[in-house]
């Protein structure tokens, strides 16, 4: 009983601590390592790669620390499948705040679409720009063009088709944006599945309300869909709709939604 309460208290404290570490660690890197990279690596692509790999290493360390301090368990199944992945659109369901951290720790050459505010943020501007992340306030056509360009350059672009965090049982219809990107870029689609049991860091739940048991975050690497099987249509717009419905059905099945 006492042990259980201690464990819960520790996880609550640890969750707060690790949330603070993201902000502090991110700011620290943004003010030290990343400016040095920007200064010394002048070629934009080489700079992108360098920043991406520092971010990946940092997130790997972060996940390992969460595990080591027993704040939560983090499991990745099939991570080796991602090592050789290039120029793929990477999609996942989105139950928690930790999702993007887990994915970026596991995925080489990771790219994402970020809040446009980060590009104006005094600390993060340099990093976000240097990493080549795409701001979310572009006009739809410019946003598509930026996503296609990054995929063509061999980056793996992470997109959450639900558009926002959703917890089990609260199904959200998938946006078509990801399928527009995949068909325009003719990029393969790597499926990821994230389970988070019991729920933690989900939408609408304050971080200090930790569950009774320690949460297990599990990232499962699924199949990589060859986009060509969907492009065999007279119209791209029809291919998009087929792709969305295929993937939506797939996620509903594996996640056990109605």
């Amino acid at each position, binding site marked *: 009983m006492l042990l259980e309460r201690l464990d819960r208290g520790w996880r609550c404290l640890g969750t707060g601590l690790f949330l603070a570490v993201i902000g502090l660690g991110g700011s620290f890197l943004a003010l030290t390592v990343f400016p040095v990279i920007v200064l010394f690596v002048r070629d934009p692509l080489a700079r992108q790669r360098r920043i991406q790999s520092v971010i990946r290493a940092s997130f790997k360390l972060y996940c390992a620390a969460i595990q080591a301090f027993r704040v939560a368990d983090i499991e990745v199944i099939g991570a080796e499948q991602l090592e050789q992945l290039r120029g793929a659109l990477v999609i996942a369901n989105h139950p928690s705040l930790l999702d993007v951290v887990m994915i970026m720790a596991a995925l080489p050459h990771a790219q994402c679409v970020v809040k446009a505010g980060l590009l104006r943020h005094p600390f993060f501007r340099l990093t976000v720009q240097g990493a080549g992340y795409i701001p979310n306030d572009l006009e*739809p*056509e410019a946003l*598509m063009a930026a996503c296609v360009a990054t995929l063509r350059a061999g980056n793996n672009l992470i997109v959450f088709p639900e558009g926002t965090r959703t917890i089990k049982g609260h199904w959200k219809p998938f946006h*078509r*944006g990801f399928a*527009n990107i995949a068909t*325009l870029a003719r990029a393969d689609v790597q499926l990821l599945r994230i389970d988070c049991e019991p729920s933690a860091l989900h939408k609408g739940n304050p971080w200090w309300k930790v569950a009774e048991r320690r949460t297990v975050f599990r990232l499962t690497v699924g199949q990589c869909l060859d986009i060509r099987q969907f492009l065999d249509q*007279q*119209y*791209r*717009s*029809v291919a998009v*709709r087929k792709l969305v419905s295929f993937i939506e059905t797939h996620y509903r099945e594996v996640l056990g939604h109605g």
Partner: protein
Amino acid sequence: MTRDEIFTTLSGYLQEMFEVPAERVTLQAKLFEDLDLDSIDAVDLVVRLQDLTGKKISPEAFKTVRTVSDVVDRVHDLLTE
């Protein structure tokens, strides 16, 4: 082409390109809200309409288009220019 003919042709495009059920295509239907098109679909539709009219349609001219009837008007204007 008369407005009716344009509407019939456009209705066909909406059905085959965007899987819109025929009964939902009315003159008042809003492309984005009612027929579930997105802005990238609109680009594809403009390209298709360029083929139909044989004329260049500037994306700006299409920015203000909201309903099926707006599209019919725009195409009709192009053809009678």
